[in-house]
């Protein structure tokens, strides 16, 4: 892992300081390293999301790669069209990467996403999931977890629906490559991006991305929360290849109880013991299912080796 981190030093920085993300934003950190890994020959399509703001209101730019902004539902369509246009104009190697929040993926962008996946367009779809419409004021999305507070599901009537399983929706489209990742496991994230760059066809990333103001967590806990989400098995690091082959990348040595993770966040402050039990049971059932479905292998994520 030390190698991964230090190898990133050699790549050009694609994000400028002075962008307008909140302190402790994990999405901006994730995109910083994804952009470095993708390199210069990339067009980034950004649907309406926090990143529309972070990337800079004109004439400023926070990213040193080409960026195309587009409306909420049309992200996948714009990216598909761009890719086709680039191929037509003689730069078929230019990567088209779509960056969308959970709203632009789980809810509003879903039809475009489904269409592009079905057509197997040659684009990388990156969903950074902060589990609500954070940019517009923390409204609930279908990625908002069960029993979480949002401004549209205020306490005590907290969100009653479980989170949508986007990975399995995408797996049902039989796309070449689906991966989940989080910045707390950098070598895993970077390796998956590099792997996706080698693959042709539709590639989908589901990236877990804590949001300190929206989640009511402390800004320095972003990485810790990401790590805990994996250690509790709430957000398993996995890959789905060809929509069939499930690979669990990381099997935690010791499972952290989900309560430790929930207690760090203000959005779960009205949680009752019954909720915690249900969340724990649900994630264990999910984990059992994944373990049965997967070819196991442990990702070598060793820093000082």
């Amino acid at each position: 892992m030390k190698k991964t981190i230090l190898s990133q030093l050699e790549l050009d920085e694609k994000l400028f300081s002075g962008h307008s993300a909140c302190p402790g934003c994990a999405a901006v950190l994730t995109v910083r390293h994804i952009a470095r890994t993708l390199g210069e020959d990339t067009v980034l399509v950004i649907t309406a999301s926090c990143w529309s703001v972070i990337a800079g209101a004109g004439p400023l730019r926070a990213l040193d790669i080409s960026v195309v902004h587009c409306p909420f539902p049309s992200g996948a369509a714009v990216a598909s069209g761009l890719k086709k246009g680039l191929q037509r104009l003689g730069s078929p190697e230019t990567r088209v990467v779509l960056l969308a929040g959970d709203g632009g993926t789980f809810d509003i962008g879903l039809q475009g996403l489904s269409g592009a996946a079905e057509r197997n367009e040659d684009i990388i779809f990156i969903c950074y999931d902060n589990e609500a419409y954070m940019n517009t004021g923390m409204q609930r999305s279908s990625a908002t977890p069960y029993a979480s507070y949002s401004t549209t599901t205020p306490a005590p009537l907290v969100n009653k629906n479980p989170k949508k399983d986007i990975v399995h929706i995408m797996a049902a489209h039989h796309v070449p490559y689906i991966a989940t990742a989080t910045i707390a496991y950098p070598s895993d994230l970077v390796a998956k991006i590099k792997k996706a760059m080698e693959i042709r066809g539709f590639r989908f990333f589901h990236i877990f991305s804590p949001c300190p103001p929206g989640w009511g967590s402390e800004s320095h806990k972003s990485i810790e929360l990401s790590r805990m989400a994996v250690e509790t098995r709430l957000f398993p690091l996995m890959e789905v290849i060809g929509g069939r082959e499930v690979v669990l990348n990381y099997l935690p040595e010791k499972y952290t109880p989900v309560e430790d993770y929930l207690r760090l966040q203000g959005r779960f402050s009205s949680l009752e013991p019954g909720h915690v039990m249900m969340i724990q049971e649900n994630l264990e059932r999910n984990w059992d299912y994944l373990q049965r479905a997967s070819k196991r292998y442990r990702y070598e994520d060793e820093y000082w080796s």
Partner: protein
Amino acid sequence: MPAPDNVLGIDFVISRGLEPTLVNHTGFWRFLTPVREEKPAPCRQDCPLGNGIPHWMQKLQEEDWSGAWNVMERYNPFPALTGYACYGYCQENCNRSFYDEGLDIRELEKAIGLWKLEQGKAGKIQFRPFEGIQPGVQGAAKSVAVIGSGPTGLSAAYYLNRLGVNVQVFEKLPAAGGLLATGIPPERLPREILQQELGLLQQAGVSFVTGIEVAAGDNLKMLTDSFDAVLLTVGAQKRRFLGIPGERLPGVYNALDFLRNLYLDGERGLIQNKGRVLVIGGGNAALDAASALRRQGAADVWVVYRRGREALLAHESEIRAAEAAGVRFLFHTRPLSLYGESALEGVRVIKTRPSRREEELHDLTGSDYTLSCTAVVLAAGSESGLNDLFPQNLPPMQPGVEENLFQILELPAVCPERGSLCLAAGDAVTGPQNIALAIAGGRLAARHLLERFYGKGYGHDFFGKDEAQILKAPPVSYEQLAPHYYPHRGRSDVPREEAARCFSCGLCSHCGICWFFCPDVAVEKESGEYEILLDYCKGCGICAAECPAGVLEMKELKSDADAVER
């Protein structure tokens, strides 16, 4: 499908914003500022030498042995000796022990020591003088007489010699080494290691005079007359008695004498004793003597101590060694008198009420009885040898310079007309301690003498400036670290792998985590060091939370100027 040509003949351009967001100085959002500060690791805090363990661990990780030795030398000139004979206080509170298994620091220290001995023998390391120092520039070359060749004397001699002073070491016994040769069992410290260290010292230019005892009066005056300074590192070997009848009977021995005769001359008279041997006392000397007796074949050895096991003064490892050797213990028992006609026949003892070490001792009246034995080894403690050298005018034990526990004592000049200094250090000042503290005493005495000779600040290039300042802070706790980046792994025999397990508590290891995890791209690597750009840092605190070494800390500062690294 081959890539089609640009059929339309136009360039495809996606415009970019004109100006990078660098014009937004987001630093003004910040209300907490990350500050990087070197802090003491628990190992460093616990080591009597204040040994910069994480510093040389970092060198070992890269298998840079000469780099590791150069760092080690500043704190401890004899890593082989301490690697073998120190009790390893550094290992007691290692933060890694909360994660999987504490580091085997002593083993690595020993490895550096053995490397030094090997390289030194081959003439590959330079011992004198230190590069940054030019002897004679600040004044005429100075000379120092060191009285006593124990660990304190040797370490003072090493540092003085290294920094350009002529050193002569005087030893009253025929062999140099002090307690290292006469007190520590060869199983713990192989004698050839000691001989090699002494050989290297001689090779470096320190001269040894053995078999000469320096006594009070003219003898000492003569020395002060011919040297610029006399350093008394005579140790604490003056025997103390219990003050009970019968202590001078034949058959009563002293523990230190017994060990010295055994290790130096191979004297085994006492061991062949077939009867019961009582060792009276509960310190390291008592348990060392008892273990040695058992190991050399004495049949029935008892340690008689007036308090319980938990109050024993000896180090835990010594107690375990004694128990393993088959020594038996008689706790809560105090000798009243030793009796016998012409030779020792037995000891009258009395039971005592259980008490802690700091409490007063109470006998249980009427519980006295007689223990028969053929020999008694007294280990009732020892005191500084300075009292013999200065019978009249020894100043009260006020340390001249104090730094943690290390103390040195400045004594009245014996020869005022020449203005030569007279200094005492080591066990002679602190009372019986351990090898690491003794070496620390020698080091401190050497620094003090150098500053007296050449002015304040001399030798800072070598010893480092604010080492003492760093040690004053509280040690880095496990909670301050972020150990997730280390794989769980037990101890390893390979030095590089074992050193790689070091969390480097309190010392930046240039891992790049702060740079990697900064969402604001406000950490920059410049000339090997990671710098925080305060113009852009929003103060989220991720760098401080994720810093594996606990070096970064979020602080409320009045202005950016305060954030300049301390």
